[in-house]
């Protein structure tokens, strides 16, 4: 029910509509809830609506944090 997926906006159309690319599938959605969304942005799509934007920089930082934690563990594991 709360399923939502990140999708890239490929085109903006009239009446708050946009076309998104969802892993190769194109779909028409509403961007009325994310008026700041532009072509190329990743949005979170839920029941045919973009409910928020995805911050690419923050996504990279989160992944870097995971890698750092795993590396830290490997290091401490060796030291122990």
């Amino acid at each position, binding site marked *: *029910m*709360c*399923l*939502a*997926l*990140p999708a*890239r906006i490929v085109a903006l159309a009239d009446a708050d509509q946009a076309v998104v690319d*969802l*892993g190769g599938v194109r779909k028409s959605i*509403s961007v*009325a*809830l*994310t*008026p700041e969304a532009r072509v190329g942005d*990743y949005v*979170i799509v*839920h*029941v*045919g*609506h973009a*409910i*928020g*934007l*995805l*911050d*690419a920089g*923050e*996504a990279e*930082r*989160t*992944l870097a*944090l*995971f*890698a750092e*934690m*795993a*590396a*830290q*563990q*490997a290091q*401490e*594991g060796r030291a122990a």
Partner: protein
Amino acid sequence: MKYVDEFRDGAVARGLAERLAAEVDPARTYSFMEFCGGHTHAISRYGIAELLPKNVRMVHGPGCPVCVLPIGRIDQAIALALDRGVMLCTYGDVMRVPASASAGPPPAGGDPLGGRAAQAPRGLSSESLSLMRAKARGADIRMVYSAADALKLAREHPDREVVFLAIGFETTTPPTALVIRQAAAENVGNFSVLCNHVLTPSAITHILESPEVREYGTVPIDGFVGPAHVSIVIGAAPYEHFAEEYRKPVVIAGFEPLDVMQAIVMLVRQVNDGRTEVENEFTRAVTRDGNLAAQQIVSAVLELRTSFEWRGLGEVPYSALKIRPAFAAFDAEKRFGLTYRSVADHKQCECGAILRGVKKPTDCKLFGTVCTPESPMGSCMVSSEGACAAHYSYGRFRDIPVVAAT
């Protein structure tokens, strides 16, 4: 898929699991409630329960919109479709939720979807309806992907009354508000909404105030994994109250397995440090203030209900939304003069206790026997986000000890 696959990396998950094992205090236990069904599903599907140290326990919360919708609300929708002849549109998940047997006229010549359900105990069983069964009896019930599709059906069928049965937490509410505003702008006279949207913060407060948590300590909760998509809309700020008032840490997390693992590490750290803060693991989509455009449209169209019944939690004050008087023409409750009648759950169904975190799916006598995802008796077995459906799909064989072949 970008921003999905990277967050499902098994090697990184194992690294996080080792990190977690190194950080937990072996002298104590930790129990955290994942409020959202999306997290419950991820924990079951990706085997996160197996990656956790023995002294870290996850308690499933009530954040599954289909699961908390009480029988009486489904009965209202079925009555509209069967007795009032409306075209009833709703999301696919809602279609199989068991309603009461009393909704609608009795079946002529037995249940068209009989068979499996005929094994059910008396009381619920083959006599109980669902939207799917009502459809089999001739009711015009349509599954839609979006609220906008329901409005489209109303435009295409001006001679019919079209009702959208709206359910869901804050994630799903803004699209409903948008469609009501759109219907008003276009003056679509044959469209209305049966609004059952519920609110996350009031449900969390209700759990924290429940006797099981406050007095008996039967449900120890050391912290919460906070919702992912709900928080995109409402932001991180609404949880600050719990962290402060109830001294419980909250970590908002994405729905991918690495997000959940990381959030549990962050919760363990807070507990070990004696901190009770709101932390955000899902920074790629959640801000402190949330989506202001979405919040604005919701508050322009909808307002608080003084009370709303939740399956499992009972009446919860100020926990749901109704349509503002300015949009009364599009409110199905007013348009059809509906009154709400509460209906008790099946006696043996433990959904209520499971939704409060008091019991596990396997504590229920019906689990996996008469109640399965194909033929659900209780709401927790209906949606893939429900605690019972998640455990049935991904975990039920874990309960059986492995025996070597002789």
